[in-house]
Structures are given as structure tokens and as C-alpha cells.
């Protein structure tokens, strides 16, 4: 019984909760609001009443389920081992079955399913962005919305849309006598906003003698749909991506976005639990999916001999879906420490959510800002010059926060620093002894 198909699948999980409230200590939204509805215990209490028939799954209750960034900090803290993210995703799916999707979300997820249409929209957006966004003074990239369209708020700073999507006309990167053939799942953030992360992934893999293809038919990972309860869109996207990668013939699938990684490793199998054809494929690709840092450290033992010096103090923000979602937190740190000249300075709470959480920051912008403010205060206490992270979505949030807080640091993906280090070594012709 899949959590996405039947709410009863999480009933036992709901009864596991003993209502101790320990989740209050770690929940970023509870810290910002101090209201039970934002913390796991409160939502589990509501859902328990729904299970027992003491309360209806009203539209209001379904709406309350949006108060969660799915950061999974409560899972880690829970003395009873409750996996709250499973309960929440099941509740959101149930909410959509009963009350439908918000019209804006419905349009957005439908667009994601029609990849060519979405692609066209984003390209058009790239040409029109000057009219919609105003540039942020003093920065060479980034812009805020000129008008609040009732969706994003005017505060959030967005990177400029790439003139051309990263994946467009992108040939396979061939290397002589490759040690491995990989296929790169870019995700939307990298495809439309952060080409620089995509270039860095390709650059790093090439230097490590890995052949990389970019399957053309790939689309959105489906996480925006599945976390919002739009199970059908999520399933359609999962099947589309599985088909695209099945055709690639690659040995490994590389992702550099924490949500996309979680989708491939965990969500697809759950979404397609009742699909006899695609479930085995989902299992097969889950086993072959690697976050870029995991792949570099654990699979190919990346080249540490040809790294150039970068004199920089760097701090690292753990993306929730990398640290708690995939248990990856040593690898990005190992990469940063391996770069000569980089000094890694830890935040007080590196694994606390940044508040981005995909569409969460669109639905609850004020709350997302409060969560982000904590992260910025943490960054401001360090002497770091750069904030590195392992996910383009966190990067966007951190970077927007740094600009709005007036902090001088830049936000980058770990793989960008690694690529920069390789490039510096290549430029100077000098390598580490």
C-alpha cells in the first residue's frame, strides 16, 4: 500500500507518536511561530482525529498540512522513531484527493508534465525577464520581482534565467578510455537558473575520466508535485525520467540537487509501488543514482592530485534532503577539505533547514524568511567568505538571504569550488606534489 495512494498506509505511523513534543526543539517552523499546527506533533494530532473520525479532513485541515518544509529534523529527533515526512506526504495526497489542487499549483504541475511547453515558457521568460524583474543593485546577477504577482513576493531575489536552458543542444562529454559512463540528471534549477553548477558537474567528471551524457527526454524530477499531493503528475514525471535514463545505457546516474536525488533514490519506488512495469526500473535506477559528492568520494575516489589553490574561508550548509534524506554530509565536507587553501568553518547549526523547501517559500514567504533569517545569523557569526552547499535550491535561498541581509558572502555548490580548483591547477600548470 503506497503512502501516495492510501492514507491508511500511515495509520500505524500516526499511532507511534506519543505526543511528547520533542519535535518542538528542532522544528524550524515551530521556532518561528510557536504554534502547534506548524510542528509534527500538532499535525499528527489533527490527523489522528481524522483517523478516529473525531475530525473531518476539511479544506482547512488540508491547508494546515502545508506548514512543513519536509526538513525531517523531527524524524531524527523523535524518540519513537516516527517518520513524519511519510505521514505528511500521505496527508497531502489525501487532501488533494478530497479537495483538489490549488489552481496555481495545478497549472504549474501540468506545465511541468508537458516538458516542451514548460521549456518554451522558461525560454520566453528568459527574454522577458527584464520587464518582470528589477536588477539588484551592485550585483552582476539576480533580480527581484517588479510587482508582487501574489505568488512569490517582491523580496526574494532570483538568479537570472539562463538565456538558453543548460540541457539545450548539449552533446555527450566524451573522454578517451572512460572509466565509467554516467548520465546527468540536471533538475530544473540547474537547467533554467544555475547553468554554472551544471558546467561544474561536467567539468569535474571529465577531469576524472568519466563520460557523461545528458538524456534529452528528462524533465522535472516530480518532487514539487509529489510533496504537494499531486500524485498523478509526480507519477507521470517519474515514468518519463525512468524511460529517458533507461535509454541512456549509463552505469550511473548523477544528480547535484538534493531533492532530485531523493526522488530517484526514494520517491520513485514509492510512487510506482503498484506499477508492475516501472517499479523494477525505479528500483534499478535508485541503486544507480548518486549525488555528485557521493559519487566523487565513494564511487570513483576523485583525483586529489590535480587540485589548485583557493585561498578562502568556506562554511557549509547541509541541505535537508542530502543530510537526512540521503545520509550525505561527510562527502561534501571531505571535498571542501581536500581543496588546498580552503578552510572549512562549521556553522553552529549547519543542518538546520534554510526555509526554501521548493514551493514552501512561495506559499509561506514570510515564514520562509524567518527560517532563513536564523541561517543568515548563523552565517554572519562566522568569518566565512563563501557559503557552500549541495543543492541548487538551497543555494538560491541562501544567496537571496545573503543579498537581503546585506552580507558579502557568495553562495555556491560544492562542486563549483572543486571545479574551480581543478581549473586553477590547469591554468597555472602546477599540481600539488
Amino acid at each position, binding site marked *: 500500500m503506497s503512502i501516495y495512494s492510501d492514507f491508511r498506509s500511515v495509520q500505524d505511523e500516526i*499511532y507511534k507518536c506519543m505526543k511528547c513534543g520533542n519535535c*518542538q526543539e528542532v522544528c524550524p517552523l515551530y521556532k518561528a511561530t510557536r504554534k502547534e499546527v506548524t510542528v509534527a506533533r500538532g499535525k499528527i494530532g489533527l490527523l489522528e482525529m481524522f483517523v478516529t473520525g473525531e475530525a473531518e479532513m476539511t479544506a*482547512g485541515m488540508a491547508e*494546515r498540512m502545508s506548514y512543513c518544509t519536509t526538513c525531517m529534523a523531527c524524524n531524527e529527533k523523535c524518540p519513537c522513531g516516527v517518520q513524519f515526512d511519510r505521514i505528511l506526504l500521505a496527508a497531502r495526497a489525501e487532501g488533494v484527493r478530497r479537495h483538489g489542487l490549488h489552481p496555481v499549483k495545478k497549472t504549474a504541475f501540468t506545465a511541468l508534465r508537458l516538458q516542451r511547453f514548460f521549456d518554451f515558457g522558461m525560454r520566453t521568460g528568459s527574454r522577458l525577464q527584464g520587464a518582470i524583474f528589477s536588477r539588484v543593485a551592485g550585483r552582476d546577477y539576480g533580480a527581484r520581482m517588479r510587482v508582487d504577482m501574489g505568488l512569490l513576493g517582491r523580496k526574494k531575489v532570483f538568479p537570472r534565467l539562463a538565456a538558453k536552458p543548460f540541457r539545450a543542444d548539449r552533446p555527450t562529454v566524451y573522454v578517451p578510455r572512460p572509466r565509467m559512463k554516467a548520465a546527468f540528471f540536471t533538475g530544473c534549477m540547474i537547467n533554467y537558473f544555475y547553468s554554472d553548477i551544471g558546467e561544474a558537474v561536467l567539468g569535474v567528471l571529465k577531469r576524472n575520466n568519466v563520460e557523461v551524457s545528458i538524456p534529452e527526454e528528462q524533465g522535472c524530477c516530480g518532487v514539487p508535485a509529489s510533496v504537494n499531493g499531486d500524485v498523478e503528475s509526480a507519477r507521470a514525471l517519474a515514468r518519463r525520467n525512468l524511460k529517458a535514463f533507461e535509454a541512456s545505457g549509463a552505469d550511473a546516474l548523477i544528480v547535484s540537487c538534493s531533492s532530485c536525488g531523493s526522488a530517484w533514490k526514494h520517491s520513485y519506488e514509492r510512487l510506482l509501488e503498484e506499477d508492475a512495469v516501472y517499479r523494477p526500473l525505479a528500483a534499478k535506477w535508485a541503486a544507480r543514482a548518486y549525488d555528485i559528492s557521493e559519487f566523487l568520494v565513494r564511487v570513483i575516489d576523485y583525483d586529489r592530485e590535480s587540485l589548485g589553490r583557493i585561498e578562502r574561508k568556506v562554511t557549509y550548509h547541509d541541505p535537508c534532503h542530502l543530510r537526512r534524506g540521503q545520509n550525505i554530509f561527510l562527502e561534501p565536507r571531505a571535498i571542501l577539505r581536500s581543496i588546498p587553501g580552503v578552510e572549512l568553518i562549521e556553522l553552529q547549526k549547519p543542518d538546520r533547514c534554510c526555509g526554501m523547501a521548493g514551493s514552501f517559500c512561495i506559499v509561506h514567504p514570510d515564514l520562509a524568511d524567518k527560517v532563513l533569517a536564523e541561517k543568515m545569523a548563523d552565517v554572519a557569526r562566522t568569518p566565512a567568505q563563501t557559503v557552500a552547499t549541495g543543492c541548487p535550491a538551497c543555494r538560491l535561498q541562501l544567496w537571496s538571504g545573503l543579498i537581503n541581509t546585506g552580507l558579502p558572502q557568495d553562495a555556491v555548490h560544492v562542486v563549483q569550488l572543486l571545479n574551480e580548483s581543478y581549473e586553477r591547477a590547469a591554468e597555472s600548470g602546477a599540481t600539488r606534489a
Partner: protein
Amino acid sequence: MLSKELYKELAELLGKENVLSEPEDLLNYAFDATAAMPKQTPDLLVTPRTTEQVAGVIKLARQHGVPIYPRGSGTNLCGATIPLERGIVLMTLEMNKIIEVDPENLTAWVEPGVIIQSLNDAAAEYGLMYPPDPGTVTTATMGGSVSMCSGGLRGLKYGVTKHYVIGMEVVLANGEVLKWGGKTVKNVTGYDLTALFTGGEGTLGIMTKLLVKLNPIPEARKTLLAVFDDLDKAGNTISAIIRGKIIPATMEIMDNTTIRTVKKFTNADLPEDAEAVILIEVDGYREAVEREAALAEEICGRSGAVAVIAAKTDEERDRLWLARRNALPALAQVKPTTVLEDATVPRSQITAMLRAIRAIAHKYDLPIGTFGHAGDGNLHPTILTDVRDKEEMERVHKAVDEIFAAAVKLGGTLSGEHGVGLGKARYLPLEFGPVGVEVLRWVKEAFDPHYLFNPGKVVLRG
């Protein structure tokens, strides 16, 4: 049901954003951390930010004849915050300022919504700490823990919350503001009203400021774990340590059911067939700690411990604490519902109480794991069950009745640190008879004649 009028007046007083009225927001306050309790949804929830606002809420509630249920983080274990007669939940979480830490008088003024750990963090900057140490130290509020007079792991040496509250500001049922106590170490001017409100479970007034004592953070600590194959030997060891003039900060015991369960869920290295383990921690000046630890180790050996392990490093200390820290979490994973009691006996009766609990578990065929603060006689018999199983819950209730009776018979008390609340109100005559209950009612009615504050808890209407 409440009148629309009251909602409007409260919204005017506090601002709309500080009054919750939608059912989906209120259902969350129908329960607290207590298992197997009736649920009741309040009519409204308010979050005042000042003493004046609290007084305003009380006046409005009185005018409309609606009860007020004070609440902090809702982590208590006796149903103390369940709004049994609906009305208004008054949540203190927005009154969360640490007003002052005074290192010269070793005191702190705090608002009731301050989380205990936040006070500890603020005090630590001066090398000080707030000693009461309930399991919920990182979530519970000061107002809640003072109202419930929380205990914790350090009770043996440091006492409990009531030993640290020396002053407060309280809004009374008539809306007047009472200020009591002060920073002096000695104070015998008038009855000790501070002591009365501490542990008053929110039934006498609403605390708006608290003055508490702080202690210096001890310089050093040392931890030992002693393993026993016999319950009597464990009990004798506890007595021998106290007789030996050692007062450990912590002296915890875990029974065989708890040991086996912890072993199943963690990689703690405990012998599965041990009848009991005792965890001892001494703290103070380095030299004193060394002597006390050596003496405690010697006494454990002499009293028949099968093994005594002393931590030499912080990592080793964490290893020893692993089992105790995981006692409740591990027990809680066995079954969906965890009924956690806190029957307490004089520490000389710990062994007898452990045996009584074991007999009750056997009689009602229930898994009961017992762990707790052996050094102060406060045990946590933990019944593992499932609220959905009606027949088993019947047996659970009977077992709880017998646990209470056993504690009282051994010269103990119904509740060492969780409080009476909703759960134990009907057992009170068992402990101090009809006279005691009547005196409680006098006190209640002197402060709150109309049962405005937290009705249905501690003292029931006569």
C-alpha cells in the same frame, strides 16, 4: 459555545493574530503529552505578550463566565493543560524574555514562556546554571515547569523546581497583579505564597514573571555504571551510597525489562540478564569528584555489583549515558501507547517498589519497564500498550490503580514530579484522605472561587 462578543473583545485587546478561533488551529490544543486522556478542544486560544494583557484576558473571561487554561509547550505528563471545560487556552509562549541574569545575587528574572534550556544558555555565559533538569529541558517552558514543580535527573543533590523559585508576579482571578518574594536568600515575611503557586498547576493564578535561583556550574563530573544480577543487591547499593555520605548529582536505575528493550533498540553494551543497572554521576570540584567517585565505585563492588564501569573520557561518559537516555525512547517503540507514571517512595523502599511493580505487571499480563531516579525514590513504571485495544486498556487502568496503592503503602506518593492534573485528581483521597482534599479545596476557592483557572484539575468542585 462562546459569544462572538468575547472573540471581538479579545481580538481588540490582543490583536487578531493573537487569538486563534478556527477549529483546525484549536484541535491541536485538545491534548498534551499525556497518554490515554480524554481530548477536549478549546473555544479560543490567546497569546498575550504582557502582564496587562493577561489581566485583560482574565477580566474578559470572568465577565463572560468562561474558564482559562494556561499552557506553555504542552509537554506535561498528567493532562494538566487539557481544556476539559473548553473556554480559553492562554498560551504563554509569546512572553519569552529573559529579563535579567544577576550573577551577584545568583538569580534570574524570566517570563513564563522562556524555554528552560534558553535560561541555561543565558546563565552559562556567567558560569551559572538553573539546576532543575526535567527530561523536557529543551522544550518545556519555565512557567510550565514552575507550575508543575518539575523534577528531573539531578533531584538527589540539587532538589527540584520548588527549591529554586524565590519570587514571582501572578495575575489573580480578580485581575489584580500580585508580586511576591525577592532576591534575598532569607525571607519569612508572610506565608510562602511563592511555594503555593509553585506546583499549583495553573489552578490558582497566572504567572507572568518568575524569579529563580541559579547555581555555579560544577567544575568536574564523573560517571559510573554498576551492573547487578540481583534486585536486592542493587537496592542495598543505593542505600549504602547514601549512608556512605556521598550525594551523587544523579543516581538512576533501570530494571531488566528496560535493559532488554534498550539493548534491542540501541547498541548499548549491557548484559541482557542483568536484574538492574545503576548509573551514578558525581559532580563538584575536581578533587572532591575524584574522591567521591572512587568511594562510590568501592561501595558498589562491596555491595555485590557484578561489574562497575567508570568513564574516563567524555566519549566513555556518553557510552554509559546511552542506555539511560534511551530508556524511554526504546520502551516507547515497543507499542504505540506509552503510559508513563511517576510513583515515588522513600529511597530505602526502592527495591520493594520495583518488586511490587513486577508483581503488578505479572498479574495484569502487561509489559512494564521501570527506570527512574533511584537516588530520590522517584520511579517511572512505563506501561507499554495500545489505546485502540479496549480490553488491554482496562487492565492498564487497574494496574495503574495498584501502582499508586503500592507507592502510598510504602510511605510514598502518587506523583514525584509529573503532578496531579487530570490523571490523578481522583486518587488524592488515597494519599491524604478527605481532610487533605478539603484543605486543597479551601486553598483553591480562596484564590479562585469561581473555578476560572484550569477547572477539572487537582481540586474538583465540592
